[in-house]
């Protein structure tokens, strides 16, 4: 999750993946690979540091500032170190209608942290996000690629206990 490597470099597998991504676009349009490559970077390091952004800029042959302005615009990229599990809960209307505020309050209470914080053991980070396109199955949160839907206090207990093992 938070593999560190110094100097900053993709693993050989991820570097091959990045090259495959760059090849998807017409010649000279490699900047199109920026968003997908930042996702690959986040997969490797857990977040996107300025060193990682500089490295990505080099790979795509674009200026570092072109990476900074994108990484800071899109909310999925974490610009600070995060815990092992980032819980991104939907705070938008439909999820709140289904009791989201109460469930997220319980989640914060259980973990002892607020949105934007990480537990002292580094296991969980809480992040408030806007609509996840799962409104009929709310309340909803997402951990990495997985959606957890129709959340109740009991389900929150199960999920957190399982991930805490």
């Amino acid at each position: 999750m938070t593999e560190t490597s110094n100097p900053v470099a993709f693993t050989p597998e991820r570097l091959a993946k990045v090259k495959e991504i760059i090849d998807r676009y017409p010649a000279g349009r490699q900047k199109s690979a920026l968003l997908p490559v930042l996702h690959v970077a986040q997969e490797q390091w857990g977040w996107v540091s300025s060193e990682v952004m500089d490295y990505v800029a080099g790979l795509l042959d674009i200026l570092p500032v072109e990476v900074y302005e994108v990484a800071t615009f899109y909310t999925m990229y974490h610009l600070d170190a995060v815990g092992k599990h980032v819980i991104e809960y939907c705070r938008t209307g439909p999820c709140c209608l289904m009791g989201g505020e109460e469930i997220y309050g319980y989640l914060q209470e259980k973990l002892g942290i607020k949105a934007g914080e990480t537990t002292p053991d580094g296991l969980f980070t809480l992040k408030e996000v806007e609509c996840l396109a799962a409104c009929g199955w709310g309340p909803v949160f997402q951990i990495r690629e997985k959606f957890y839907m129709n959340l109740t206090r009991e389900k929150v207990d199960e999920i957190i206990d399982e991930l805490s093992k």
Partner: protein
Amino acid sequence: MARKILTEHINVPGIETFEVYRKQGGYVAVEKAIKTMTPDEVVEEAKKSGVRGRGGAGFPMGMKWGFLAKPEGVPRYLVCNADESEPGTFKDHHLMKCIPHLLIEGMIVSSYALGANKSFIYVRGELMYVIRILEKAIEEAKAQGFLGKNILGSGYDLELVVQPGGGAYICGEETALLESLEGKRGNPRNKPPFPAVKGLYQSPTVVNNVESISNMPWIINNGGDAYAAIGVGRSTGTKLISASGHIQKPGVYEIELGVSVDEFLNSDEYCGGIRKGHHLKALVAGGSSVPILPAHLITKTANGEDRLMSYESLSDGGFATGTMLGSGGFIVFDETACIVRNTWNFSRFYHHESCGQCSPCREGTGWMEKVLHRIEHGHGSMHDIDLLVDISKKIEGNTICPLGDAAAWPVASAIRHFRDEFVWHITHPQEASQPGAVYMGEMTLV
């Protein structure tokens, strides 16, 4: 049972695989289009179908295709907008996850019609698991000769690329999406030039929603006229509705356009009615940006006619007494919902998602959120209500893209129809700011 165009086979076990999808008649439209039709003939069927953009704008898809510039020697692009982020909307998520080959087949037929050799599906980054499902489907279709070089021996080449977004509602706006696809911030472009002339990489480009494109296989197989025969008036075909909120059966439903709102809301085939023991208070019919309606204007129009699930009927009465079909994000509120709190919540969303390019939207959305926050939390003044209306009017129509309008409409409509509830929050600050507090004064419930 109503006719299904998109979801007929959605519950067939294994439908996400090429093999099962093919057995259910999948990819027949690709064979028919590529082997027996010219690209212009495919465009003609799309025009005849009358299918309108299902992302929310409702612009006729065939007409949009007709605008595509075709200069010699310049590549053309088709980009599918799968950035579904409008609160209340989750139909494309459902469709792509359950039956990915339907979109792939639609993309092949549509790309052929437009003369595109490289097409993109831009999926919101949060749906990475759906991206993997689509990529697998593309691999399967390629292995069977339906994608790649020389499709079915026709000489037509097509490559499909699935592009993840990075978490930004604004990228659902088509020019912001194109900026994002070029690896930039999602700032909408000034129009003209329209994407049909200068879109992706400054080349002619068509951007269509997932659901719109997914209609194409049926349209090719059955003809545009057959599609146009379904529905009512200029609302042809079927529509996916994402139903959420205080109903018995939230979920994604395919309706024939023209079914009554009453039937959609109350029949067991669809929402199954308001949750037990509760009453209908309000409805957002087409995603968070469309005007909210109070109970007495939901199943009937202001003239007392049955309100239908169609572009025209939902907008009957204009914004005074009507709303919009939008993206089909159908959010139902019962009497336990606080309209002020919900309006504040939606305002916070639009403030968060404003790209910041245009001052009226950047400043106005934040201002509205702040004012609504103080009303909801017991610190509002009577002047604030008119202030909100004033700000919303100054945003509307004054921005490059429609996000400004989308932010203004929910606020203006909530005050239009639920002013008493705002007033109550201001005159009863202590009561109103309690958790779960809801105005229970005079209002119509159904």
